[in-house]
């Protein structure tokens, strides 16, 4: 692999950019791999990357039905934070956030990590209490967050209206080293590094069946033929129930649409991420100047990557109260993704009833931020059978009543 560098840019400038090579190979599938990863989203690719980097397992195929990064990884609003309430969440999200800090250097790929700060507004008395509690929990977990008063909110976000008619801004939970990154670049960077280690990323190849022999995974049926494997990881987000069905087990999960939209590009006006969870709206400004806006999920099961218009309307209506300038913005694009929501709003990173078949899903509305930490932990689980980071996220927790309840903590968990 040719490394990207300032020198490489200069060299290519002098020879009309004829020397750039493809970032990853597109090979035909081999009949057998040590590990098959289903789903080339951020989580699948990060898992493959750390299997190679941390455990030297490189006879790996990542199988993707569409194009890599075309699922939720390429559809999210890119918020990265780790200010969760429960200890197991804080551990894995903070691991992920810290890996984001050096990801561009590790991958030799600019993922544009921008630790610009994430602010979660408190707009009711309950939220004040909730976020102060989270700030205390974070202090114990070693995650740096703080409670800030309205005056400081206004200082950080001059365009905010503190005294909205329904929901005044009463303060905020502030995480200074949280922020955003370029979502496509995260997928592309991992894909390039995986391909460089000799792994096969097979796109346009849908897994249509899972072969189980004597209770153990033996391989998959795909639109490009059967492929055998020793171990398999399913990282297909909204399609997890469908994949599990192929392997003969069920999941405590439902798939629903979540939407986002962006405005026309405008001059820089907000250099932090603001989340308003009571009214279900959050916003940041992209490097191109677009205001990136996300809202709440639709209520009913859905696999179409399309959501209902009235949810967008609700989100924007709420944002207009807190950011009056939003009423003047023209919206350019809107899209949806199918998010995988579990009973306690926390992910499953787990062994399954099928031996050597592992699952990582249920990140729902908030799994972009966790990609590197999740991949790190999932690789450890798949390679060694155990990871301290994934222990509590087992799918058995619903039977044992050991929930990792983040729905109360986060309201909407992006």
């Amino acid at each position, binding site marked *: 692999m040719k490394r990207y560098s300032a020198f490489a840019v200069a060299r290519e400038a002098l020879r009309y950019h004829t020397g750039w090579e493809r970032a990853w190979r597109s090979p035909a599938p081999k009949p057998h791999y040590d590990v098959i990863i289903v789903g080339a989203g951020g989580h699948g690719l990060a898992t493959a990357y750390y299997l190679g980097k941390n455990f030297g397992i490189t006879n790996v195929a990542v199988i993707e039905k569409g194009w890599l990064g075309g699922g939720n990884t390429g559809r999210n609003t890119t918020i990265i934070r780790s200010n969760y309430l429960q200890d197991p969440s804080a551990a894995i999200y903070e691991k992920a956030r810290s890996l984001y800090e050096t990801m561009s250097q590790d991958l030799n790929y600019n993922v544009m990590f921008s630790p610009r700060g994430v602010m979660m507004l408190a707009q009711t008395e309950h939220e004040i209490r909730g976020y102060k509690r989270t700030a205390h929990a974070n202090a114990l977990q070693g995650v740096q967050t703080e409670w800030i008063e309205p005056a400081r909110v206004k200082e950080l976000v001059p365009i905010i209206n503190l005294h909205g008619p329904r929901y005044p801004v009463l303060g905020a939970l502030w995480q200074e080293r949280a922020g955003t990154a370029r979502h496509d670049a995260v997928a592309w960077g991992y894909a390039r590094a995986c391909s460089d280690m000799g792994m096969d990323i097979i796109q346009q190849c849908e897994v249509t069946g899972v072969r189980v022999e004597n209770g153990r995974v033996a391989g998959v049926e795909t639109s490009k033929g059967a492929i055998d494997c020793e171990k398999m990881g399913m990282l297909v987000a909204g*399609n997890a*129930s*469908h994949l599990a069905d192929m392997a003969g087990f*069920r*999941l*405590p*999960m*439902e*798939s629903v649409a979540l939407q986002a939209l962006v405005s026309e590009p405008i001059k820089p006006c907000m250099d932090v991420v603001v989340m308003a969870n009571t009214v279900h709206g959050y916003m940041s400004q992209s490097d191109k100047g677009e205001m990136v806006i996300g809202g709440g999920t639709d*209520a*009913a*099961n*859905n*696999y*179409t990557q*399309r959501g*209902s*218009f*009235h949810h967008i309307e609700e989100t924007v209506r709420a944002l207009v109260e807190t950011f009056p300038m939003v009423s003047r913005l023209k919206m350019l694009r809107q899209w949806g993704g199918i998010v995988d929501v*579990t*009973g306690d709003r926390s992910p499953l990173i787990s062994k399954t009833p099928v031996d050597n078949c592992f699952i990582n899903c249920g990140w729902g509305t908030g799994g972009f931020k966790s990609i590197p930490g999740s991949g790190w932990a999932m690789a450890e689980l798949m390679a060694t059978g155990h990871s301290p980071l994934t222990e509590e996220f087992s799918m058995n927790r*619903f*039977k044992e009543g050991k929930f990792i309840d983040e729905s109360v903590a986060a309201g909407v968990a992006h």
Partner: protein
Amino acid sequence: MLILECPYCGVKAEETELAAGGEAHLKRFGPGSDEDQFHDYLFMRENPKGVHFERWRHANGCGKWFHAARCTTTLEVFGTYSAQTYEPPQEIKDKITAKRPGWSWREFSDGAK
């Protein structure tokens, strides 16, 4: 936009009039049930790609609960029916069979097998 006809008041209600109530025809488990029964009842969801049965409430209308049969991959609505039933009526099953021959959902199916 999702439009469901309320089987009680007959209004063709659009989504903002309705509240979603999750999976239909769940069998409830109470005191004395074992772990597996509680687990499946509370958390295990059908989450199918295709034909699905749901509970909805005509929240900003007559206020009543009812059932709907929908397709999660096309968002097509097959029909709505009363909440006072343990299973979809034959008429709804027939409507689904006409469009999705071979369908099945939990213990219900087109009856062809």
